[in-house]
């Protein structure tokens, strides 16, 4: 009887789809990072063409991993409301480019790093922090991913490296720029940075 019961549960588990259930946040982040590591260690991608293939793959993973909209809103903070709809959209797009250039592309230079997933801490009802450590020959670097749940999915909205929050770091920069410049002025600076001016 007991056996049958478990059998039934097993069958139910197998056939009932859980599309809305994103899984614990740690598993989600872990999944993305493992995918990135797989791409990085993919020995079939070599040379210059392999490099750009890797970049493209990492970018498509980051697309699913990050909530760029949330990232942008949090980075601008109060200033978000000074941007009109179009400016907000453009900002999000440009900011995404900057982050990808800065971090996604940098990743492909890593080869022998190991990532430890330490624990997850609840920050609020919808947000939590996944603590990881990158082990390199030279140092252990603590990297924390802050994730938010939206429509059943957990997505990263901030990365904290050695205590330095990406969102806070850019927020301070943008705030200083916006103290003397208009939203368009800031967008102009970002366009130049991304090479679209």
């Amino acid at each position, binding site marked *: 009887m007991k056996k049958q019961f478990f059998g039934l549960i097993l069958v139910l588990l197998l056939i009932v789809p859980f599309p809305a259930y994103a899984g614990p946040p740690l598993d989600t982040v872990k999944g993305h990072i493992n995918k990135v590591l797989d791409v990085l260690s993919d020995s079939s991608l070599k040379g210059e063409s392999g490099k750009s293939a890797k970049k493209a793959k990492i970018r498509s993973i980051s697309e699913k991993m990050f909530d760029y909209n949330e990232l942008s809103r949090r980075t601008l*903070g109060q200033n978000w*409301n000074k941007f009109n709809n179009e400016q907000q959209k453009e900002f999000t797009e440009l900011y995404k480019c900057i982050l990808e250039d800065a971090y996604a592309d940098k990743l492909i230079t890593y080869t022998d790093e190991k990532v430890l997933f330490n624990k997850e801490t609840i*920050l609020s009802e919808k947000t939590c922090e996944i603590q990881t450590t990158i082990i390199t020959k*030279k140092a252990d670097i603590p990297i924390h991913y802050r994730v938010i749940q939206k429509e059943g999915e957990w997505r990263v909205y901030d990365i904290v490296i050695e205590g330095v929050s990406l969102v*806070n770091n850019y927020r301070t920069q943008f705030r200083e*720029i916006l103290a003397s410049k208009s939203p368009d002025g800031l967008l102009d600076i970002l366009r130049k940075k991304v090479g679209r001016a």
Partner: protein
Amino acid sequence: MAGHKAFLWGKGEELTMKLRKFSIGVVVISVLFLFGCAHNSVRQDSQAPVVTAAVSDQNQETKSTQAPQIQPDTAKETEIKLAEDKEDITEEGEEEAPQIADPFYIWNKGWYYFNDKFYFWLLKPVSKGYSFIFPEIARIGVSNFFYNITTPIRFVNSILQFKMKDAGNELLRLVINSTVGVGGLGDFAKGQLDIKRKNEDLGQTFGAYGVGHGFYLVWPILGPSSLRDTVGLVGDGFLNPINYIRPVETSIAITAYDTVNYTSLHIGDYEDIIEAAVDPYISIRDAYVQNRKKKVDE
């Protein structure tokens, strides 16, 4: 090469940290951060979440422009938006970055440019040449050696912060790595016994006592610091055995070598920070403050 000033200010710093400072930018993400932290945090964004709550602008006049201006006809819409924003902001309230006063902006920015050039024109080429000659494993050994020799700084500061377990770990690490680790070249304590490194310095001790940064200060060659951390640096200098080597020239030369060795292991870190930043000066300042806060909190 490091110059007299470097010697003076580098006196008490823990080596690893010093190097990091030395290599100025090298810092950032994994490095620079050894320092910064601010206790005088000005929670700017979260200070004006509600329309009626005028930003308390005691220390941020310039920021007061951020308080939303409400036009009667759009008031409702704005209120809704603000409500959303408020939610966001309370949510991340505790992660709001600390800020630091920067009254000596001109001085700081001047040395920031100097340090940038110093890194790209002198420190980086020298370190690159050095790393070309010596394999990484040897350079990591040297770096471990310098870390080991500055144990007094971490030991004393752990005690000053009543972190007896950390102090004990420092002693253990010193004994183990000086013997089994062959004079500190290997980090046996960490590799085999999992006794982790933990940086402590006088600036952090002050921070743990509740002393704020005061203000941001950039020093030539040493890089980002603050009033509090500068005082700490000088104090720590007395605990750094290298500073007791005579003649003074030898002491300076060793410190310079330490810096080059450290930089050789971290080429690219500073470049990454600069490239990722929209305003590198502010990015580094903010990173310094955030990182120091983390160090003090730990």
